[in-house]
């Protein structure tokens, strides 16, 4: 965390006392508005190199640009808002930023012609709690790719190096 916004806004006669965490991935160099995860008060901040250059200043009536990564209530034990709590903390999509999104160049075979699991989506093959087996059963999971591989073998397009 590069900094926090400790929200002291009076809500129903008592201070909000929510610590909103500002993660360096998003906020290291950042200017804009951000909501408190608990009372949704909007604050303006300007951070430069992880330091709070300006703010936090309240901006009533404005829409927040983003939300904190995570927030908790340290004075109330372990109550918190985990990341990606809708409307409170920042949605977590884990997709590359827009300028990095290009046309996917996915592969099914390595340069020597053997199958490599480089395309999406892969068929479901996980077990309990995300567990995976130790073997990629390509013949059953992706029979079309398996067939393509057999064809490559027949044509002599698979080599040792």
């Amino acid at each position, binding site marked *: 965390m590069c900094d926090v916004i400790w929200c002291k806004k009076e809500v129903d006669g008592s201070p909000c006392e929510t610590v909103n965490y500002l993660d*360096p991935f998003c906020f290291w160099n950042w200017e804009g508005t951000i909501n408190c995860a608990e009372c949704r008060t909007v604050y303006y901040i300007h951070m430069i190199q992880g330091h709070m250059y300006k703010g936090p200043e309240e901006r009533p009536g404005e829409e927040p640009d983003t939300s904190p990564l995570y927030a908790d209530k340290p004075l109330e034990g*372990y109550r918190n808002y*985990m990341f990606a709590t809708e409307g409170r903390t920042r949605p*977590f999509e*884990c*997709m*590359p930023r827009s300028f990095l999104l*290009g*046309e*996917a*160049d*996915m592969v099914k*075979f*390595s*340069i*020597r012609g*053997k*199958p*490599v*699991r*480089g*395309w*999406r*989506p*892969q068929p*479901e093959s*996980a*077990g*309990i*709690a*995300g*567990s*995976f*087996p*130790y*073997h*990629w059963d*390509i013949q059953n999971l992706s029979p079309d790719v398996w067939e393509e591989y057999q064809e490559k073998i027949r044509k002599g397009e698979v080599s*040792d*190096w």
Partner: protein
Amino acid sequence: MSKKKDPRVTRIEDLAGPKSPGELEEMKMPYEEYCRQAFDPGNEAKKPESLKGIRWLSCTMYIFTPHSAANLAELGAEVIKIEIPRMGDAMRHTSPFNEAYLYPLHESRPMTGTGLGFTNANINELYLTMDYHIPEMVDVFYGLVKMSDGLTELYRPGTLDKWKMSYKYLQEINPRFIYVWGGGFGYGPKVFGGSYDILGQAHAGLASITGMHEYMGGHATKCTNWVIDWASGTIITYGVLAAIHWRRKTGLGTMLEVSQVQTPTRFMGYSVPLYGRFGIVRQRWGNWDTQLCAHGIILCGKSDYPDADNPQEKFDARYVMVSAFNDPDFQELCSVIGRKDLWDNYPRHKQRLEAEAQIEVYDALEQWAADKTRTEVSDALNNAGILAYNVKNHREVYESEHLRQRGTIRWLDDPLFGDLLTHCTYSTGLMSKSPRRLKWQWRPVGADNVKIYRDMLGIPVSQVEDWYEKAWI
């Protein structure tokens, strides 16, 4: 009357094997053949593993600290990589260029893969997910600590202490526990400073002596790859192996604290002592050498592959390393390039080591090479008995017969991700009795949850599924 052999007596001449020191010498196989049989690249799986029986927890991310644990796993330790639920190590989301991914990352994320940037840093490990900082999971984490030999973590100093998981706490649970912190600066000024490879190259002054001098158009330079991440991770592993040996003697664990921005000082040779003795700040000297001349990399005029599409081949296949610093070699070099005047001017090594002399020598070499390809240059010099070698690109590394014969570069049929070309595990030298090996590159996030939570810790599957639903694991 001939003397009959007494069957009850075993005579030396009846035994198999050499009968004299001379015969013994004759029966020994040639040394090269002996080495090939002793190391036998490609058949590592038939041999035992030196660290079998060691169990390690890897609470790490990116390259530096994960690599320290991967070193143990390659040597046979059972390493459990603990990752953030449903996301995993941040390095999984880093890839060198568009779409060098292997799928899937996790069962809930069919459209997200693990980037090739993750390669080699987490070899042979078991993959567990756990949000161990939520209070409900701390006891589960302690359960793992009780049955493990050590842990590597990379959080800001004091973070695990805040969660009651630092060495202070864990040694009370398991006094034999070896605890490794690896990160940016460690205690001292900038204790909260994070770390990157480039920060290490800068902070320790390594980048200041890499690259050509500004006089020659150069700049302080970082190595393109994250060498300090990989090298610092290996330095941690030395420490861990020493700690394991210490524990055999004393029965007690220990704590290692490795600052990544500190380790590059190990690669700076005499630079700091030079300053201490004379007050001289060492200069960059790039592709040339401050201690030997001629002993550097020169640029040739023509590419070996002028028609290639790839710019790395079309334009950059022009560099050759040349080493001819002792007097006879340098004299021969001057003769080959038709500049005997250089030998007349600089017959002693001390003379040609001077900066002005080096500028003249390398300039003459590059002028001679201006109308040649790098292979023509290296052939001409090799034929004259001078060491010269093409600076290879990575396609040429792949095609290198030397690296193939020794098993350094090889294809892995990864059990889960298919055909992968690898170069890391087998780059560290060969061991005849208990070699390193690569079993799998990595597994999806949480791929071994059931194996560890149920089979190892004895937690009921219903509980595991409940945690999974809550994204605690």
